[in-house]
């Protein structure tokens, strides 16, 4: 019985423990910090983009990505185009196609 009374008393005291509490005071430099925050928010889109790119994690990731793309392009197997195919293409483009070697000489021997 006495124990319960004791608990009730403690509860009542605890409930009134915050009565007449003085108001907590804010940091005297709050205004300066707010203004700094406002200026930070007002930075232009490009400045914010630059800030974003300047972050070490982003910059390292970008460099790694460029290196990866370069190495991919460098080590990619290219199709070997034969010299013969090149010659044929050249001949077709300039109407130099002839079935015999004579034709070639005929073309070259023509007088102006």
């Amino acid at each position, binding site marked *: 019985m006495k*124990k319960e009374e*004791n*608990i*009730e008393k*403690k*509860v009542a*005291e*605890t*409930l009134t*423990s*915050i*009565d007449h*509490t*003085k*108001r*907590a*005071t*804010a*940091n005297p430099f*709050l*205004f300066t*910090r*707010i*203004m700094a*925050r*406002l200026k930070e*928010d007002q930075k232009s889109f490009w400045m914010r983009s630059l800030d974003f790119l300047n972050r070490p994690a982003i910059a390292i990731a970008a460099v790694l990505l460029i290196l990866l793309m370069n190495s991919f392009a460098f080590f990619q197997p290219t199709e070997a185009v034969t010299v013969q195919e090149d010659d044929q293409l050249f001949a077709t483009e300039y109407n130099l196609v002839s079935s015999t070697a004579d034709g070639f000489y005929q073309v070259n021997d023509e007088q102006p």
Partner: protein
Amino acid sequence: MNELELIEHLKKGDETAFKIIVDTWKDMVYNTSLVIVQNAEDAEDIAQEVFVQVYESIHQFKGDSKFSTWLYRIAITKSLDHLRKKKRKKRFAIIQSLFGVNEEEIRHERNFQHPGISLENKEKAATLFRAINKLPDNQKTAFTLHKLEGLSYQEIAEIMESTVSSVESLMHRAKGNLKNILTEYYKNSDE
């Protein structure tokens, strides 16, 4: 400059008016955030956010209510949002701890000491603040505004956009819940 003039000047982007506004209401905003989030650093961050929002959205203030009422609303909303985010983080930390990561986050049990409480009441007040933390948001808001900001039920009703009778009811339930939590606490601590 009176309140209305200050607001009009701020709407025109006057920095001096903004400084006067911050200096006039900074303690009120800080104390309100502090008693809700129960952490000095977080409360300062929230106070900064509140005034940044005031600066950016002063055009939305129509003067239907008192300026301080509008400020209280912003401070309370931001503080409660902050607590919700923190709870989500804590839940995530608990999940992480199951895998043996981030145990520090959970062990971080705060024992909040309000700077305005007298020395002889510090221990009991810390117990009461822990109990207040367990109340639902609306009961916590009404109780702290009444007890720590010294606002009347009428003023709290205006801030919470409610009626005086519903604030009375919130206060009655808050006191009942606190009594139960504290009784349980002292029973267990005496055993």
